[in-house]
Each structure stands twice: as structure tokens, then as C-alpha cells.
């Protein structure tokens, strides 16, 4: 009986210690990992300035890693690992999570094109889509591909805004919209 009480008390003690550890103020989101992030969109454009209307310096691919040099609102000045390129990227294209990439895809920096890299993601991916398409031949993926080919460049967006006499605050482009949750703005300014 004494043994049972000891075990129960020990279990309780462990649980309380664990709970205390978990509830203790942890590091803020990204406090530690923010220095190294991974591209989570198919293509991430690095720009000269922190604006979607700024010229593009280079394009990173899904799975590429970057380190943060400084932060400005929703934008981060980043440096791409394994290259000398740096520029401004919007934080929505980056994640602190490690992407669960498929084994056997080789280096993401070895020249694989974006489609091959996209295939590397775990879960619903290109392989699953291929199976879905083969069993649903009536689906119009041809038009989806056509849609995705229509891309408006920063210059076109700027011209559209200018011709339409719209005068948005340039710094608001790519920042949180009014009423939206604000992100942690740690890091250097």
C-alpha cells in the first residue's frame, strides 16, 4: 500500500514538474529559430526593398534556407544559404518549421526545377494529384495550368495603381491589413 502511494505521489510530482516546465514562459515564436528559415512557397522573390513593387533581385525555391539580417514589419532582409544573394522577402513565404521533404530528392540546391522540388513535400503533393487526375479524367487541370501561367509583374501592378490614380501607402503593401492579427516583430530593425 505504501508502495502504491509512493508511486502515485511520484507520478503526481513528475506531472507537476512537467506541467511547470511546459507552462513556463518559453522563447517567443521564432526567438531562436528566426535566424534560419525555410522557403515554404514555390517561388520566393528577393527584392531590393521591402515592398512587393520593388524590383526582384533573385528567386528562391521551395525548401531553400535563409538567414535573417534584419526585420521591417512583415518583411525580412535575408541572405540565402549556399549563395551570396541577399534581399528583402515577405515573411509569409518563410517558415520556421522544418519542411518534411521526401528522401531521395537530392540537394534542393542542385538545380532541381520547381516542379521536382514541389514533389518533395510530404502529404498532398504532385504524386497524389497525378493519381487523382488519372481517376478523374473530366477535371479541367488544363485550365488551372493556364490560370497559373498568368502572372502580373511588380511593374505591371505599379502601372495599374498609377493609371488608376490609386495612392496606397507604399509601405502598407505587404504589411498586415487593418484589423488583422499582428505578427511578432522581433529581430533587428
Amino acid at each position, binding site marked *: 500500500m505504501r508502495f502504491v502511494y509512493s*508511486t502515485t505521489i511520484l507520478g503526481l510530482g513528475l506531472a507537476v514538474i512537467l506541467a511547470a516546465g511546459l507552462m513556463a514562459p518559453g522563447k517567443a515564436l521564432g526567438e531562436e529559430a528566426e535566424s534560419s528559415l525555410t522557403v515554404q512557397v514555390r517561388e520566393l522573390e528577393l527584392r531590393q526593398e521591402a515592398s512587393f513593387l520593388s524590383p526582384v533581385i533573385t528567386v528562391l525555391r521551395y525548401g531553400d534556407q535563409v538567414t535573417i539580417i534584419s526585420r521591417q514589419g512583415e518583411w525580412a532582409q535575408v541572405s540565402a544559404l549556399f549563395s551570396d544573394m541577399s534581399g528583402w522577402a515577405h515573411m509569409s513565404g518563410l517558415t520556421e518549421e522544418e519542411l*518534411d521533404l521526401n528522401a531521395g530528392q537530392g540537394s534542393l540546391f542542385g538545380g532541381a526545377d520547381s516542379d521536382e522540388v514541389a514533389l518533395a513535400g510530404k502529404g*498532398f503533393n504532385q504524386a497524389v494529384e497525378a493519381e487523382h487526375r488519372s481517376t478523374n479524367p473530366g477535371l479541367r487541370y488544363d485550365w488551372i495550368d493556364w490560370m497559373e501561367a498568368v502572372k502580373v509583374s511588380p511593374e505591371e501592378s505599379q502601372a*495599374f495603381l498609377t493609371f*488608376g490614380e490609386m495612392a496606397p501607402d507604399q509601405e502598407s503593401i505587404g504589411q498586415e491589413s487593418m484589423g488583422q492579427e499582428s505578427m511578432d516583430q522581433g529581430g533587428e530593425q
Partner: protein
Amino acid sequence: MRTRFACLFIVLVLCGSALSCVSTGTVVSAVQSAVVVGQAAAHAQEEFTPEQEYYLGRAVGAEVLAVYSPYNNVDANLYLNQLGQTLALFSSKPQTFGGYHFLILDSEDINAFAAPGGLIFVTRGMIKCCESEEALAAVLAHEIGHVQLEHGLEAIESSRSNEVFQVLAEESLSTFGPGELGLLVDLFGDSIKDITSTMINNGYSREFEREADKAAVAILREAGYEPSGLTAMLEVMQTRLNPQGTDFAKTHPLPSERIQELGAIGVGMDTVQPLPGRQARYEQFLAMVQ
């Protein structure tokens, strides 16, 4: 943070179990139960990655285009994309895995759809409810709102999402055999059905529509458009919707109710005074979709 709370949940279950334990065997059993419950809770808190959202959205879009024909006019679709993709820059989710893309559907129905990941469709009937660029911008901003708030993904039954995350947690895709891949493909197909049946047949909840309207107002203001373009469009839509129709009339709250709710957040019925250059390019576009 979510993982921390999932672990905390396990610990709290452990605490509760320990308090009621009278034997070592029961403690072990309680620990095992807590771990199982905790794993289920952890799966429930997982999210689809942007890449998975992208592939779901492509499939949903392909379903929409199996029902509606695209309007095959390159210039009209280019204008729609210039407007839509520029607006998306002002959303709280300006980037998605594959980006935002817009397409006109060749239908007189009054309808618009937003597939997860940023594929957005607008019928010619809907466009004709828009008498100004501000009004069309409001329609697109509302759909962008659905994307940024991930309403499409919310339409997937939670039990199905949990099953997907459980399959992914158990096996690395690299070791998937045909059976596991087949299961994932089935779950993919069922998830698509969940989304399309909500989007096309049943509509989102009133709360989601209200959230999308609020997001639209924010996007329009940031971009420099007068948000009353949204109420102007709803007023025209009100006169054209067939209450028995299977389009917007079936899947959305009444325009009058939306106008009332917009009033509550400061968007009135002010007449939109379009600028000449802006209106000229819009009328040129409108002529292409008549």
C-alpha cells in the same frame, strides 16, 4: 506553442489519472490512455502546409471548371488578374504557395468561388453586377478574404483532416507503399468533395461571409479603393438575384443583410464617384465580357 499545449494536455490527463490511481497497474494504463488521447489532440491541431493547400486548391478549381466553362478571352482575363493580383498584395496573406490567379467563368449565374491557395473564379453574371472598378475590386477582395482566412480548408471535415495527419505522422512518404498512397489519394478526393460541396452547393457560414466582407473592406482601403464599392455591388446584385436560384442566392446571405452588416463597420451607401481614367479602363473590360 500548439505542441506545448498538446503536451500540457497529456500532462493534465496524467495528473487527473494519478489522483485517482490506487495501483501501479492503473497508473501505467492511465499513462497509455493519456498518450493516445494526446496524440489525437496533437493531430487535431496540425495544419495543412501551403503546398498541400495548393494541391487541394488546384483540384477544387479543376472541379469548378468541370461545371463552369472558362471565358476564353485573354485580354479580359489579363485585366482581371491585374486587378486581382494587385489587390492580393494588400491582403494579410499576400503570398501563397502558387500565388493568386483569377479566371472569368462563362456563365450568366451570379457567382464567385475562391479555391484554397488563391485560385479565384468570377462569373460574367457577377461581373455585370459591378458598375465600377471599385465594385469588381470589392468582389475580388471578398474572395481573397476567403483565401487568406483559409475558409476552404475549414470546410474539410475535421475527422478527415485528422485522418490525413495521422497517416502522415505514422509513415514517411518515402516509405509509403501503394496501400498508404492509395489511402492518401482517397482522403484527398474526399477532402475535395467536402470543399466543393460547401463552396458550390451549401455556401460558407454567415460568420465566414461576414469575416470575408471585413477582410475585403480592409484590403480595399489599403489599396486605395473606396469600400462602398462593395455596397454598390450588393445593391445591384439585389435587383438581379433570383431568390430561387442556385447561385449566390443559395450560398450567400441576402445582399440587404450584408449591406446592413457593412454599415455596422462603417461602410455606408455613399455613391462611388469613379475617376475618369479608372472608369474608362473598366468599361473597356466590361465591353469584353458582355
